[in-house]
């Protein structure tokens, strides 16, 4: 066989032909072809059906999220799910009852207050009972939105009623929005349904004062009452 080969390449053209005709060729195996196709066109089959949809879908979702973030603060919050709002409305309801049917109890300090503390689960180390401007007129246990607490009622010299409710704070977080610096405290001050409210947390308790002092002058007076009550009252949860 070697003789045959030698006979075929006596000249240059013969050697070239011999190489082309006799030298075995090695075509790429299927595995290599698949690997090279993947190298040249990565992810090509998948792009045919979802590749064209992905960018616009992603863009739409991103736009929706940005719109939501922009509009979320102005959207009305569901009253049934905001614990601060629920407590606020319950306090205002109590306050309205006090205005209409509240009564001045002469025995508030010696009798009503100890009983309220005993039954409410909220005790008071110190309590503001009043001065020449405002007087404590009633104390009773209360129950607001599933929270047992104590309710103190004050009346100022002009006849305005101030309701002060103290309930366990739980996980209720007061918002930063509406906070006002009053003396050395920074409670939330808000107006709701024609009433003024001052809310703060103290010793793990949620404290709310409500009054009908809504004008600027009255609100300033209400803040003074807050300072008096806040600085002279020390509540704590018994349980």
């Amino acid at each position, binding site marked *: 066989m070697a003789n045959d*080969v030698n006979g075929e390449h006596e000249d240059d053209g013969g050697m070239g032909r011999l190489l082309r005709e006799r030298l075995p060729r090695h075509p*790429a195996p299927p595995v290599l072809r698949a690997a090279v196709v993947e190298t040249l066109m990565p992810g090509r089959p998948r792009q045919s059906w979802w590749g064209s949809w992905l960018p616009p879908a992603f863009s739409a979702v991103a736009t929706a999220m940005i719109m939501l973030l922009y509009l979320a603060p102005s959207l009305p919050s569901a009253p049934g799910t905001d614990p601060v709002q629920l407590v606020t409305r319950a306090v205002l309801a109590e306050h309205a009852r006090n205005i209409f049917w509240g009564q001045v109890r002469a025995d508030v300090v010696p009798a009503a207050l100890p009983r309220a503390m005993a039954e409410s689960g909220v005790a008071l180390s110190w309590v503001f009972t009043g001065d020449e401007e405002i007087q404590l007129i009633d104390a009773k246990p209360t129950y607001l939105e599933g929270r047992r607490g104590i309710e103190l009622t004050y009346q100022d010299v002009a006849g305005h009623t101030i309701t002060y409710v103290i309930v366990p704070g739980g996980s209720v977080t007061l918002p930063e929005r509406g906070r006002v610096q009053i003396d050395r405290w920074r409670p939330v001050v808000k107006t709701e349904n024609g009433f003024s409210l001052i809310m703060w947390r103290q010793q793990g308790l949620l404290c709310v004062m409500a009054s009908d002092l809504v004008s600027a002058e009255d609100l300033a007076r209400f803040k003074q009452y807050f300072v008096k009550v806040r600085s002279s009252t020390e509540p704590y949860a018994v349980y």
Partner: protein
Amino acid sequence: MADDEFRQQALQHLDALHNLAVYLTRNGSEAEDLVQETYVRAMRFSHRFQPGTHLRAWLFQILRNTFLTFYRLRERESALSEDGVPEGEAPMFHDAASRDSESSGAHMDLDRALTKLPEEFKTPLLLAEVEGLALEDVARIMDCPVGTVKSRIFRAKERLRGYLKDYK
């Protein structure tokens, strides 16, 4: 050249690239690695390819350069004994000796004779005579003048004749 067009055209030369890779490495899996690395590099440097020039020659050039960079270096390392001293005339590539016993056909003699050629003779010979590339393209691939390519092909053929006589 558009990307898709470039990829499609590059894929057409797969068999030819693999054929040369087999003759260079004398090892199936190494040949596949070499071809795959060639395509990876071609894609990475596709922006350097000038449309209108010979894509086939450009791919062969990448394949040869990759072979020279990695595979010969590896062969050189494997030719060293454990103490780092070269072991005389270690074969650069796997020999096809085992296949000789399976067949005494002319193509096996030719195949074996080809393994004895140095790469700088073997590559231009295969590119010009088997793959049918113009001498100018072969010269570009080999990074040498056309005259040198002609000389190497001539000498390669002479050597082949000599080797083939040995198989008488």
